[in-house]
């Protein structure tokens, strides 16, 4: 039994890791996303910047198909998440904002469970788990209960888990929330290394602008709308601002951007 074999057409190399086109989503009367269009290419770091409540988590819920987008299309490596969810989801690795590890189980057990959810058998899963853990420098903790890990280590385990099925797109929803400066730096460096080594596409949602580097692509989401989309340089040039933070303020309007400014100060 295989699912939708006709959808297994080879993917054109030009397909971006993620492409979202014209997606609007409402909860009752509240418009969480308003005609959102954005792209995350392969082999690149795309920052999705926005304050709390900007619609980042809603967008992630739609991409991961927690619920369906009612308008527009969302494609992961060319696969429409609504028409061909199996192909899209198998190309997708996610690190959610809330912690999603089983605290009572060991690191390895958590990874094996995830591998099983992707149909990866026990022996192969074990090999992959150790390789993935080595990448985040945690192979020594495989047999430890998750409860014994620090916040930063848990995040790294979640990244290892998201990589187990070798996705082409890695989504991270504010992954540095609650981490100290050292762990934040390690985490960001590790994800950037993944991009260089594997050519994986990364969509990194954050409200901390200092997590963005000059070479990155930036999508600014504000009150459910995409306010800017381009490289850091383009964003700065457009706003006539020196740094990303100031550019962000200019783009969303200074009065609205308080949360981001505060976050910057806190993280400085």
């Amino acid at each position, binding site marked *: *039994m*295989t*699912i939708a074999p006709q959808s*297994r057409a080879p*993917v054109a190399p030009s397909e971006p890791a993620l492409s979202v086109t014209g997606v609007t989503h409402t*909860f009752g009367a509240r418009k969480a996303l308003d005609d959102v269009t954005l792209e995350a290419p*392969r082999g690149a770091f795309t920052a999705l910047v926005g304050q709390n409540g900007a619609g980042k*988590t*809603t967008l992630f*819920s739609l991409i*991961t*198909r*927690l*619920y*369906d987008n009612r308008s527009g299309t969302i494609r992961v*490596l060319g696969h429409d998440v*609504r028409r061909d*969810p*199996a*192909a*899209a*989801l*198998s*190309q*997708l690795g*996610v690190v*959610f*904002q*809330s*912690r*999603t*590890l*089983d605290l*009572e*189980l060991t690191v390895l*057990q958590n990874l*094996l*469970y*995830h*591998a*099983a*959810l*992707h*149909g*990866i*058998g*026990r022996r192969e899963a074990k*090999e*992959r788990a150790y*390789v*993935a853990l080595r*990448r985040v420098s945690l192979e020594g903790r495989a047999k430890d209960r998750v409860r014994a890990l620090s916040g930063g280590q848990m995040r790294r385990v979640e990244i290892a888990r998201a*990589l187990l*099925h*070798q996705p*082409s797109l890695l989504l991270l929803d504010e992954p540095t929330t609650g981490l100290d400066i050292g762990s934040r730096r390690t985490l960001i460096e590790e994800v950037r290394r993944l991009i260089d*080594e*594997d*050519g*994986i596409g990364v969509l990194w949602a954050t409200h901390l602008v200092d997590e963005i580097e000059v070479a990155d692509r930036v999508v600014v989401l504000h009150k459910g709308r995409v306010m800017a989309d381009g490289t850091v340089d383009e964003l700065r040039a457009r706003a006539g601002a020196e740094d990303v933070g100031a550019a962000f303020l200019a783009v969303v309007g200074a009065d609205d951007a308080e949360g981001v400014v505060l976050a910057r100060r806190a993280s400085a």
Partner: protein
Amino acid sequence: MTIATTAPGVERRITAGGYLVCLGGIVWRESLRFLHQRGRFLSALVRPLVWLFIFAAGFRATLGVSIIPPYETYVLYEVYIAPGLIAMIQLFNGLQSSLSMVYDREVGAMRILLVSPYPRWFLLVSKLVAGIAVSLLQVYAFLLVAYFWDVQPDDPIGYLTVLPALILTGFMLGAMGLAMSSVFKQLENFASVMNFVIFPMFFASSALYPLWRVQQASIPLYEICRYNPFTSAVELIRFALYRQIDWTSLAVVAGCSVVFLAAAIFAYDPSTGLTSRRGGPDAGK
């Protein structure tokens, strides 16, 4: 450094073997969690035993049970209520797995389950199978203790013939819990589940007293008991323990299973689903 043999972007085909691996993984995790929660196992065992050792012993004298099918002789009150207690174990377990679904949703583990590329109905059925496996473990542990209390079927074969009935009743009660789990937003609601679901279902059934006795007391109550699917679950188990099939109960349990499962699949479906209408699992934050 490469992560494994294949590069990212290489597509993994969804095969029949993959379905089995996925199902196995879900059952494995649920069992691991169950083993880690020793308190849950203990309370699942102690609860029916309290009813058996104390309640039944106390009421043995006051409640006479006449000879009704499937019993061919007078039976002790303990023997009469054993099938009801077995169904109670499964009822609690079914609702507990729904509780764990709500918990999973709060801590986000649910999202890990739902981003699996396998179809959602399959993931839900796998959850259900995992819950049934755990409930069977609990039921047979109870039957073992009850055996030493002289509460046994008339023939040891009954322990075998009850198994298919248990799987079916576990399916029905688990699916009911699953469907209900989509309705509850947060854990606090579980206390009301106890009051509004478990107690009424259990007491308005044939678990503690034969229906003809209820009929003598109150006709409306008798009708309620008769149409309570929990009564059918109890009777299905009762007859199966005595190597018989109660066809009416079988039909009701099977029918309710289908309806509850359909409701759960509908509720968790991303396009029709209640998750979206309610603003998703993070809506409460």
